[in-house]
């Protein structure tokens, strides 16, 4: 890997929740323009890792650098974090959420958001609280992808949506992804998104079980990323 183009650098990252170790001595690099699949069973530390990179959690030890800068107020301006939880205010309409993003994120592209809204069949005048779970997921993803961020952190973007919506979401990610940005996608639905991955990181109990170039792993093992996932976690 070319380390000079490192978008994200994680070294010796350790995180505890009380006495429980969630991430243990994690180290990896993500290059500019690449998509990393973050895979692992429930409780393996995927969300914790994404939240640490987004600056929402604090590590016990180790270092995270986004373009050479530690997670801070400044990196939030260039990092788009998609939480797997609902995060919009109940009083908001979709149009309010759009204005909110436009007001706080200088990289937010309103016309891109409008395109994504029509692609996802969402009505701008609808109240956020009136949307179904799947529609909320589509809205959250549309908001995140409408930013021209340098690093996208997508936590379970396909969770809780129907297969048709999943296809739309994957298409939206492909459509909006640029060579200048890097993406980390955490998911259980590996077969839906594995075609997007350039690199794959398998996490088990907060430690790296397997990490590498997706194409190399496919060739080396003669299996798809989904099949390797099953192989790695078969006894978990």
């Amino acid at each position: 890997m070319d380390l000079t183009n490192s978008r994200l650098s994680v070294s010796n990252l350790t995180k505890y929740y009380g006495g429980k170790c969630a991430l243990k001595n994690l180290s990896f690099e993500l290059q500019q323009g690449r998509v990393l699949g973050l895979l692992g069973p429930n409780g393996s530390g995927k969300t914790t890792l994404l939240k640490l990179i987004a600056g929402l959690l604090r590590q016990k030890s180790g270092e995270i650098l986004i373009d050479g800068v530690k997670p801070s107020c400044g990196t939030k301006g260039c990092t788009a974090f998609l939480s797997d939880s609902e995060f919009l205010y109940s009083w908001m309409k979709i149009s309010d959420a759009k204005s909110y993003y436009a007001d706080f994120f200088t990289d937010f592209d309103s016309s891109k958001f409008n395109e994504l809204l029509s692609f996802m069949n969402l009505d701008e005048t609808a109240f956020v609280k009136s949307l179904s779970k799947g529609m909320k997921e589509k809205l959250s993803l549309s908001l995140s992808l409408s930013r021209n961020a340098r690093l996208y952190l997508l936590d379970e973007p396909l969770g809780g949506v129907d297969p048709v919506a999943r296809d739309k979401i994957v298409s939206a990610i492909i459509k909006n992804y640029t060579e200048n940005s890097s993406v980390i996608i955490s998911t259980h639905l590996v077969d839906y998104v594995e075609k997007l991955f350039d690199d794959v990181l398998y996490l088990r109990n907060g430690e790296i079980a397997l990490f590498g170039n997706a194409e190399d792993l496919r060739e080396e093992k003669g299996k798809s990323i989904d099949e390797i996932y099953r192989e790695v976690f078969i006894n978990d």
Partner: protein
Amino acid sequence: MINLLKYELKSRKIPTLWVVAGIFIVNLLIAIRFMFLAPSLERLANELVKNPLTTDPLNYISNLDPFLLVVALISSPVIFVFPLFNGISSFRTDYFRNPKYLVASIPKSANQIIGAKLLITLFEAILVSVSFFLWFTSYAYMLMRGASRQYLYMFFNFLSKNIVPSLLGYTAFLFQLLLLILIIYFILVVFKFIRIHKAIKIVIAVIAFNLIGFIESFFTDFFGQMSILDVKVKTYELVSFHFSSTPDAFIVNIGVVVFYISFAIALFYATTYLIDNKMEV
């Protein structure tokens, strides 16, 4: 900062509008009731003109309409309670409920976010105070409809004498409101780190709140006893339509003022430091 203020206002506008609308509706109902009391009011106005020094308008009003006084007594704490409640509720929504993921992701420091919350709380307190002030002013107007120029002059004279202490008192009231909110924010943030049973957390939070109150009153008494720090503030009155200073003056202890301001600044920075560097969402 402007954007933070805008969204803080947007997310708090519904309860604020309800409270202000509530004050005006009650105001309107009492004004209608007042119209039926017009003859008694005229009698009061004449009495005040005849015997301005011994007549107590409050006593008259309570005789005229006890309902008015009861409503005023019940509703006036709203000026303090409503912005306090709204300020705490907004903080809890932004840092303890689901929008925390959104708030924690925007490129704004806790200084700016908490600063915006305090400014909007201040705005709400002033808005509700103004609504009450208009209410009482309208009663004063109705009371004085039949009064002579002499009584009006006396009334404005009374107002002008009290304007400096009233403004200082009101500023102190607003400051106390913000300080109380800051203490509660600080306790909420600190207790987010402590992983113990919720019931025990509440008990310890109450003890911590009282402890901060004790420290506050200890230093207030400490500085308050230092007469060297006392400053005399003059009051003014309207004489022949010109303001002139009066022999009356009241004391402000500058040590207490500096302590309170320093205490509030320290609480503000301690809270925002913990949010930016230690708090997890």
